[in-house]
């Protein structure tokens, strides 16, 4: 119980630190005055002064921090600087399902791809197929995701749209699941695959290394001495032993994507998710909007981390169960 409490305390501390950091980035960066930005270029000092007062930028920083946090998390009525009256928090929550759908699809592809390529690489260690897979993984890691998205669009929407392979691809955009489950899937498959490419590259490499390490383990020698067949050996023993470290990595990346790491893909494929919302905020310099998305994203990462940590403890009996008696 004590461990849980101290972890919770640490989490709260990290969350507080993040909120201060993000607030400071947006409102206390030296030399960057938000009132000047809102007033526009070349505004007269009087106008800037009026803006400063109207937005409360002349109040002390701690006060402004507290007000901002209240607007964001307690009263949840933070309004945009650009579209007056637009509630930022509700916008973020409205965009969340799009991002969630995208990231879930991507996770599906990336876990499957990483498993396939990681197992192939490990099982054929040193052979040409292993080298090929390693090279592909390295290339996957090296492609800028937004460029790949553009290329996918080019191929699927324009050049080969009429071929049998891509004729099913719908125009860019999002279809809610409730409207049409099939349309939802169609709209998300290509963006999700694009998003997954880099992660497949990363995770197949991690998994290959971990599997090869696990294969050297004493427990795997026991399994072989037991007469376990190769499929069982790889899937039930080696993967079970090595999958855990990949799992904690997976949790972190999954949370980062959910929190807006998928911004570039959402922009390229015109999916109205949280990342796209941030992008809109960028073009209009809507600080509350950007701050809300960034802060929610960071909080999400911290909470997801804690959850993964708990899951890890559940799956790896060696950790944190010292006093277990059952």
């Amino acid at each position: 119980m004590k461990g849980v409490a101290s972890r919770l305390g640490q989490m709260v501390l990290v969350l507080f630190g993040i909120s201060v950091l993000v607030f400071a980035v947006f409102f206390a960066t030296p030399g960057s005055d938000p009132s000047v930005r809102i007033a526009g270029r070349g505004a007269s000092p009087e106008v800037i002064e009026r803006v400063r007062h109207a937005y409360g930028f002349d109040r002390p920083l701690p006060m402004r921090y507290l007000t901002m946090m209240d607007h964001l998390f307690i009263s949840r009525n933070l309004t945009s600087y650009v579209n007056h009256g637009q509630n930022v928090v509700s916008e973020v929550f409205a965009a969340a399902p799009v991002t969630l759908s995208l990231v879930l699809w991507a996770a599906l592809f990336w876990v499957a791809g990483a498993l396939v390529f990681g197992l192939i690489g490990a099982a054929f260690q040193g052979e040409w197929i292993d080298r090929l897979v390693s090279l592909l993984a390295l290339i996957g890691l090296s492609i800028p995701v937004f460029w790949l998205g553009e290329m996918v669009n080019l191929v699927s929407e324009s050049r080969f749209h009429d071929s049998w392979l891509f004729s099913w691809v719908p125009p860019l955009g999002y279809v809610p699941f409730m409207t049409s489950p099939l349309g939802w899937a169609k709209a998300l498959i290509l963006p999700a695959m694009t998003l997954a490419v880099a992660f497949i590259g990363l995770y197949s490499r991690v998994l290959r290394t971990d599997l090869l390490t696990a294969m050297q383990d004493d427990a795997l020698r026991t399994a072989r001495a037991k007469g376990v067949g190769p499929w069982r050996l790889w899937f039930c023993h080696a993967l079970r032993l090595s999958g855990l470290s990949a799992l904690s990595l997976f949790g972190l990346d999954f949370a980062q994507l959910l929190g807006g790491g998928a911004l570039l893909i959402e922009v390229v494929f015109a999916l109205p998710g949280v990342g796209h919302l941030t992008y809109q905020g960028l073009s209009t310099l809507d600080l509350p909007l950007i701050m809300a998305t960034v802060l929610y994203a960071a909080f999400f990462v911290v909470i997801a981390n804690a959850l993964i940590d708990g899951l890890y403890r559940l799956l790896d009996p060696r950790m944190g169960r010292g006093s277990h008696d059952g």
Partner: protein
Amino acid sequence: MTGEALLSVSDLRLQHRQAGILLDGVSLTVKRGQILGVVGESGSGKSLTGLSVLGLQPQGQLSGTLRFDGEDLTRFSSRDWRRFRGRRAAMIFQDPMTAFLPVRRIGPQIVEQIRVHTALSHQAARERVVSLLGRMGVPSPEQTAQRFPHELSGGLRQRAMIAMALSCDPELLIADEPTTALDVTVQTQILTLLKEIGAREASVMLITHDMGVVAQSCTDVAVLYAGVVIETGPVAEVLQAPLHPYTKALLRAIPPMTGSRPERLPVIDGVPPSPDTRPVGCVFAPRCPQVTPDCAIRPPMRGEGAHRAACVLVP
């Protein structure tokens, strides 16, 4: 049933591409009902011999013959090996902590082996596991089966390991340093258990570096030095009248149980040859106090009856 050869290894050689010659002509026989102690220093190839019997030796060139109950193991396909391992010959390892998969409970790991080799239902296999654990002297076997490896003591883990090895009624049990990682009191218990198994259930090949363990629990012994078996025979004869100079030196290096302690235990000068610099002749010749010119040629095993040694001094 005793007397019939179960496993006979002859002139087993293993050459590894990087490490060199690991096994340099190992010959030994395990008869049914026997507990054969395979004794040697680390690096002498005793564990490799055990692993080779299950086809688990590291990649390398293997030559020689391995016969198990009349079957030629060197001709086994990977499918044959899978049916053989765990079913007809099983192995237990030095460190039961690392030998079990740490993320699964003990019971299911044993059940897995039973289900791989027999058509037993899940329920039946589980009951069998509990009875096996009980037979191995594990207190409250049902609860123990539900534990994770790290939740058990070293002795219990090794008992569970032995239970797993015996779960498919193998004819041969290979125990690779089964007591090295355990406390002294627990060591004795495990050795007693192995002795009982040797008497009742399966032949045992007990790999150890400890002559004391051999004396305590084996019926026969094979002494390995630098990848070669240099002396074999019934334990009592070998201990009382060792033939090979190496065995003699080895026995002298054990502190006496009674009488005054010697100031210093006698040591053997020099170090065993490394795998890439094996001598052509007798492997012990460079360190042997009684070396003769004849030692430049590898001596064959000679002697009377079951007690034989590979030394020119043996009549």
